[in-house]
């Protein structure tokens, strides 16, 4: 709470700095001693930026540090020393005590947390008061120095623009930080997972049953973490069934829209396709599970597939294919539109019909772009979560029968992380290993697809 107060105080100091510098510059201007180098508003902004940004940066960097410091302080207190040394139990008590101290919950499951809560509150208020005071001091100091520079010849605008430039650069660096955050957090947890389960078992094993038993003597207590069935399921649903639906429909839709459709029809059809792309995936998932899956199962039983499941790969794949249609269509649309008009005209002038022109000239010319688009669509499909969570099953089968149930990487990630989770268990960490594998696969697909698209674009420019 006191950190929040410090934040407000810093902003107030910055506002004060703005006003002081602004009035000072205005006075110099009205005094008529000469031409002011920068407008008064820039002087104000200069003082305000100096007062606010260093102090805010300090506060922003302090928040994660403080959590660690508070925890250490609590652990070194007499109550903290008395805690059980077992990591998992201690962590859960600490988390509870933190929540009680913040008023997020009233009572904890562990009795120790109640005695720890005052320690937490104490340490937190101590550290945040210190950090807040330092931040306010910095704001005052920097603001004061900046304010003193206000004068006739001072180039306040250049100073403000330098700050702005820094801000712009910082904003664009967030993308790199996010990528780095993803890679590091996934890698870190995956390495911990590989300490428990060997990488070869994970990558080459063919049985997946992550249920580790709570008691050692339970049946099936050894979890198996072979990820091959998951990747097969993912490819089967996302890259095979969904693409069998999406590629022909998407490609033909794009051809009709760009080559045949009258302009007014096109103006209606394109937004409708965009709506298809904008429907939330949870809606598709519900549709697949409730409407499509029972029909598919009945069809399967009718044609004599006795193992037809109501969580069939086909239902999830079909609906996912429908979801991907607009994506394929718009990628194909772009690549067909990028083929030079001269090639089309040349073919038509030789007497080819429109269909012949499309099949023999436009499509071959646009092929790299279309292939790139399809690869991007595959990467979308295998990363898609909700449809498979709701419509595909949980049993890790290695089967090519579309009426049977298969499971996918994303389904298992959700399953592993949303049950009763315990940290440090192989089960929880496995989700991060699967996430890393998924990240790498989609990254590679995207890179290949982008190279395809770029190389093709260069060919015609």
């Amino acid at each position, binding site marked *: 709470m006191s950190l929040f107060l410090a934040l407000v105080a810093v902003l107030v100091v910055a506002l004060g700095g703005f006003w002081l510098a602004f009035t000072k510059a205005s006075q110099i201007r009205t005094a008529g001693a000469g031409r002011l180098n920068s407008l008064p508003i820039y002087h104000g902004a200069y003082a305000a930026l100096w007062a606010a940004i260093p102090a805010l940066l300090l506060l922003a960097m302090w928040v994660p540090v403080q959590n660690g410091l508070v925890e250490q302080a609590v652990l070194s207190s007499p109550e903290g020393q008395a805690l059980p040394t077992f990591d998992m139990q201690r962590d859960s008590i600490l988390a509870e005590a933190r929540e009680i101290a913040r008023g997020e919950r009233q009572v904890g499951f562990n009795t120790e947390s109640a005695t720890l809560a005052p320690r937490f509150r104490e340490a937190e208020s101590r550290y945040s008061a210190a950090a807040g005071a330092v931040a306010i001091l910095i704001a005052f100091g920097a603001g004061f120095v900046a304010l003193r520079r206000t004068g006739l010849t001072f180039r306040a605008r250049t100073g403000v623009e330098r700050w702005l430039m820094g801000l712009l650069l910082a904003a664009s660096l967030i993308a790199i930080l996010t990528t780095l955050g993803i890679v590091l957090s996934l890698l870190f947890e995956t390495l911990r997972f590989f300490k428990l389960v060997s990488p070869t078992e994970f990558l080459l094993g063919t049985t997946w049953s992550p249920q580790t038993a709570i008691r050692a003597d339970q049946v099936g207590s050894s979890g198996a973490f072979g990820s091959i069935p998951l990747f097969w399921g993912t490819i089967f649903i996302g890259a095979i069934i969904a693409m069998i639906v999406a590629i022909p429909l998407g490609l033909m839709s794009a051809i009709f829209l760009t080559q045949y459709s009258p302009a007014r029809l096109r103006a209606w059809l394109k937004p409708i396709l965009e709506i*298809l792309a904008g*429907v939330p995936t949870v809606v598709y998932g519900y549709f697949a599970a409730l409407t499509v899956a029972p029909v598919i199962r009945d069809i399967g039983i009718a044609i004599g597939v006795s193992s037809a499941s109501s969580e069939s790969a086909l239902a999830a794949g079909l609906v996912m294919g429908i979801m991907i249609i607009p994506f394929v269509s718009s990628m194909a649309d772009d690549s067909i539109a990028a083929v030079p008009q001269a090639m089309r005209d040349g073919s038509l002038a030789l007497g080819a019909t429109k269909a012949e022109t499309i099949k023999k000239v436009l499509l071959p010319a646009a092929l790299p772009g279309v292939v790139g688009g399809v690869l991007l669509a595959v990467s979308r499909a295998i990363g898609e979560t909700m449809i498979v969570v709701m419509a595909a099953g949980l049993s890790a089968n290695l089967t090519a029968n579309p009426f049977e149930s298969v499971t996918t990487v994303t389904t298992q990630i959700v399953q592993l992380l949303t049950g009763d989770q315990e940290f440090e268990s192989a089960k929880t960490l496995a989700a991060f290993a699967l996430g890393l594998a998924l990240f790498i696969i989609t990254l590679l697909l995207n890179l290949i697809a982008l190279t395809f698209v770029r190389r093709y674009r260069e060919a015609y420019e």
Partner: protein
Amino acid sequence: MTVAASRWTDGSMDSRLRRRYAAERRFRLLGLFAIGLSVAFLAFLLVTMAWRGLGGFSQTEARVTIDFPRSDIMIDPAALAGPEARQVVGSAGLEGALAQAAVTSYGEEADELFGGAAARALGKALIEDPSLLSQRAELWLPVTSAYDIARKDAGAPEAERLVNAIDARGDLRRAFNVNFLTASDATDPGEIGVWGALKGSFLTIIVTMALAFPIGVLAALYLEEFAPRNRWTDLIEVSINNLAAVPSIIFGLLGLAVFLNFMHLPRSAAIVGGLTLALMTMPVIVIAGRNAIKSVPPSIRDAALGVGASKMQVVFHHVLPLALPGVLTGTIIGMARALGETAPLLMIGMRAFIATPPKGITDPATVLPVQIFLWSDEVNRGFVEKTSAAIIVLLIFMLLMNGLAIYLRNRFEQRW
């Protein structure tokens, strides 16, 4: 080598031409069929959802006569005017009295006709009009979900029989289910509502917007207007393009590892959801923003530079305002996507059972798509139509946002 000569006289040319034109027509029809099929899928999806879900907005109510002075409801009418009126009616045992009244009206079978929702509605009616307590009153109250289903479509045989009997007496009606729009999650499908989830969604989207929009726009400006051509800029561009294509669930894993396990932000709160979705939406805004900035013609920059503006003034006084409609369109589309996103929010624990709407961004909350997912998992049949009804609410919001984006694009976009 012989050259096949085209003869116009013997008809072979004609038949060849006919074949080629037929192929042309077939191809064209195939295209029409493909797009028709896609549109039909969409129509089928929307119609099924509407068909299943519209029932969720209505609620079966039964007429019941309660003789308040003779019932065992003990409420002091004076207490109803006070600030604790809700607690007073809450602890007055209204459910028991309702069961009694239902039994006297409709026979022994009807003791479970009314549940918590009816008791709350009765309590509300009493607070509004305390004079009811001194009279015999006739009220329309919502029936429990088992009877609601029996009325709307097929339910259990006993429920079916009772409902038909009451209906025959004209004591059953359908009313708009206000509760569905004002209540939150509950265990009984008759009492659930979307308000809690909707509020959670709004809070989350506000956080997302507040972070992703400024950062996205500033990054787009930097990359398009200032960035030097070097390896760093390439790295930034590559990571933005990749982030835009990373599966959303990966962002959920990032949020779990960084915001929850490392920074210890409150679990399942709107702020964590908003942060996670902001990281996911930011690349979308950057890409849309760059396209919009790119389409501002260089002559405008040159003119501003020519009258003495600095580079920064050119960008913030001229380029950004002109590019803003395009940037906003991209932002709204990104926000609509964030609004419909489920998977990353599951990862950061926004799937808890939340029965009270969140008051702030640090309170435990859930969002509408996650709520839909949670209800879809319920076995109770009453949840089916409520899930579809919630989907209708979600789709309406998505359509509104996308419509706004299309309107902005058509209204303000300039072609130079």
